[in-house]
């Protein structure tokens, strides 16, 4: 009995060392090698550059809110020391995020379905959404707000918004950027990722790419 356990211990020990080298070092390194050679852009996270400067990834959403300045031109901070921000009307707005769009420390918001705080948060976001968009789209009502616009994403860095959400914001973008609404709508279509193979998942509008395209268009 004791001898056989010793034999098993030795076999296990060698097996774990060998398997760690094979599955834990060789396998990921080979996959990394192939990925970096065959699909370097994807393997490095679909980085987006403007004039050679890294501005993000097409897969990582970012916040399009700008800092609120006080009378002296300094950024205002709240009680906790975080900068106060407001939606930048020139840009399509991303979804609410539970982690302030930080891609290096992702987190769920973990809001409960029956939480009073969840209700208040959604109500507050709906108020802000109406305050921002109703000026440009008079027909917009609370009941017509797309659910993705006022509820946090899972990853906190959702790169997309729903097409319905984008169509509402298009009125504001067209007015602020002095573009015809049809032009903005066409831009939305150009930056909408359809369902995978036509059936899988849901269509979504890539906010970063859409905003970059609009910047390019209006600076011309």
């Amino acid at each position, binding site marked *: 009995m004791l001898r056989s356990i010793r034999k098993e*211990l030795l076999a296990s020990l060698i*097996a774990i060392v060998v398997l760690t080298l094979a599955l834990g070092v060789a396998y990921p390194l080979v*996959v990394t090698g192939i990925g970096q050679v065959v*699909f370097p852009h994807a393997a490095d996270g679909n980085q987006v550059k403007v004039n050679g400067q*890294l*501005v*993000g990834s097409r897969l990582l959403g970012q916040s399009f809110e700008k800092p609120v300045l006080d009378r002296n031109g300094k950024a205002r901070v709240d009680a906790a020391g975080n900068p106060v921000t407001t939606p930048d009307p020139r840009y399509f707005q991303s979804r609410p995020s539970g982690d302030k769009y930080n891609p290096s420390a*992702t987190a769920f918001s973990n809001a409960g379905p029956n939480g009073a705080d969840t209700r*208040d948060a959604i109500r507050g976001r709906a108020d802000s959404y109406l305050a921002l968009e109703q000026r440009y789209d008079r027909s917009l009502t609370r009941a017509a707000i797309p*659910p993705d616009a006022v509820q946090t994403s899972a990853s906190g860095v959702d790169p997309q918004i729903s097409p319905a959400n984008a169509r509402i914001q298009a009125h504001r973008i067209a007015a602020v950027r002095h573009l015809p609404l049809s032009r903005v709508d066409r831009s939305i279509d150009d930056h909408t990722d359809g369902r995978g193979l036509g059936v899988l998942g849901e269509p979504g509008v890539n906010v970063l790419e859409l905003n970059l395209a609009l910047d390019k268009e209006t600076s011309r």
Partner: protein
Amino acid sequence: MTVQGSIQIVLLLAVLTAAAPLLGGYMARVFDGGTMRLTRVLGPVERGFYRVIRVDARQEQDWKAYARSLLVFSLLSWLALFLILRTQSVHPFNPSGFSAAPWDVTFNTSSSFVTNTNWQYYAGETTLSNFSQMAGLAVQNFLSAAVGIAVVVAVIRGISARSAKTLGNFWADMTRTVLYVLLPIAFVASIFFISQGMVQSLSPAKAFTSLEGVKQLITLGPVASQEAIKLLGTNGGGFFNVNSAMPFENPSGLTDFVSMFLLLLIPVSLPITFGRMVGARRQGWAIYGAMMIMLVVAIGIVYAAEGHGSVAQHLAGVNGGNFEGKETRFGIPSSSLFAAVTTVTSTGAVNAAMESLTGIGGAVPMANMMSGEVIFGGVGSGLYSMLLFVILAVFIAGLMVGRTPEFLGKKIAAREIKLTMVGTLATPLLILIASGIAIATTYGRRSIFNAGPQGFSETLYAYTSQANNNGSAFAGYTGFVQPNAPGNHGAFGITFADLLGGGTMMLARYLPILAVLAVAGALAGRRVSPAGPGTMRTDNGTFVVMLIGVILLVALLTFVPALLLGPIVQGLTNQVF
């Protein structure tokens, strides 16, 4: 429910039903020691490995010897993982320079990955180095899956044996699973995932400035290679904290579909493997059918509940489905489907925030796990747990009609029934005890995030998930205060939650394994009596209904009071708490 949403669901189940006989038949050949195209290439590697570890893979083991090899291997795996994680700072591939997580969190994590649970109190991208992820966690993703499959193969041999005393050889089953099943599929899947936008890099994080001037980091890592085995092995531990919701870990609707396909692939194939190996294909499909019926019901309920929207959202005047904690590219249908399939299998990967599911939408994942992870379940563990329920159903049916219970010609005696009871009741008992202790003590309540019934749901979910080796979470519940969390200076573990959870995972993994191996050992030696006109059939519709009934009565009914107090009360009211 939308047409497009339903198409995805039907498509997934159809593709899996087509794949099950292919992989199921292939695995039957692998475990019968047959030769395939792959053995011609990898055969020398396999034999070389046995020489290096100095075992004779042809030597048959009885159930005790098989269990001994398995336990010793698992124990050393645990120690190796604990050591790697605790000495993280001295290893290479640590571009962010992370130091080790506290010992209590590491205890939980090691127990979690060795038991195929992948419960995560840590957040990957802010806690672990690439080396810990690759050489620590991903290795156990392979090995814990292989151990689970080895057990079910031994059990199948016990049932199919013609009065033998042995169940095969643990080392051969484990090695062949890794070499001929897990590694080839994971390799192909990881390359596909990269092509679709999943990250695979060992470079340090890239700094960038967003359009609004915010300075941030793009965190890279060996994600795709880990992701493939995380899903295939029904492990579920994400590289990133938000798991398969993170676009770097699940970039599109297509990768999401492939993810769900991978995590169900081996669990749907094993019943077919079983049918082939015992020489009763209909029996394999009967078990498959019982599992599939329960899965379809689960998917339907989650989808309907999420499409209806949450109470909080309705009170805020917002229409539409419950989008809280869901990604745009998956929407309601794929998020609901994922929530169901990740909890019927013991995967626990998530593409949405489980905590933010509606009351009823959250009750279903819990019920899925509480069934004992027998609705396809984990790789290996799902089928061997299901076979215990089959034996129980045969026994109860035998009592009802007054016949000696027998399964595939083998008489079931008192000792097997006792062991079956141990195997089926150990996990529910552990859930009730652990969540009872956690909710009744101030130590346990420190982990709770949300108020009211949701806080109870978090606790119940945590111990249900850990005991069933699932690993998904109502993620507000915590055992580790993260280093990068706002306002937190330094990291510390919540020792109570870490130890109770870690202990629960280990007991709930190895007690049923020992029980089921003992049952298999007893059945292996029994002679097969030929089927006569009086033999009760176990491969027809009546038996499928009987089997589902036994699972509902034995496993699920235990938890009805607990489910009522947590998720169901929230699902049935229009109140907020």
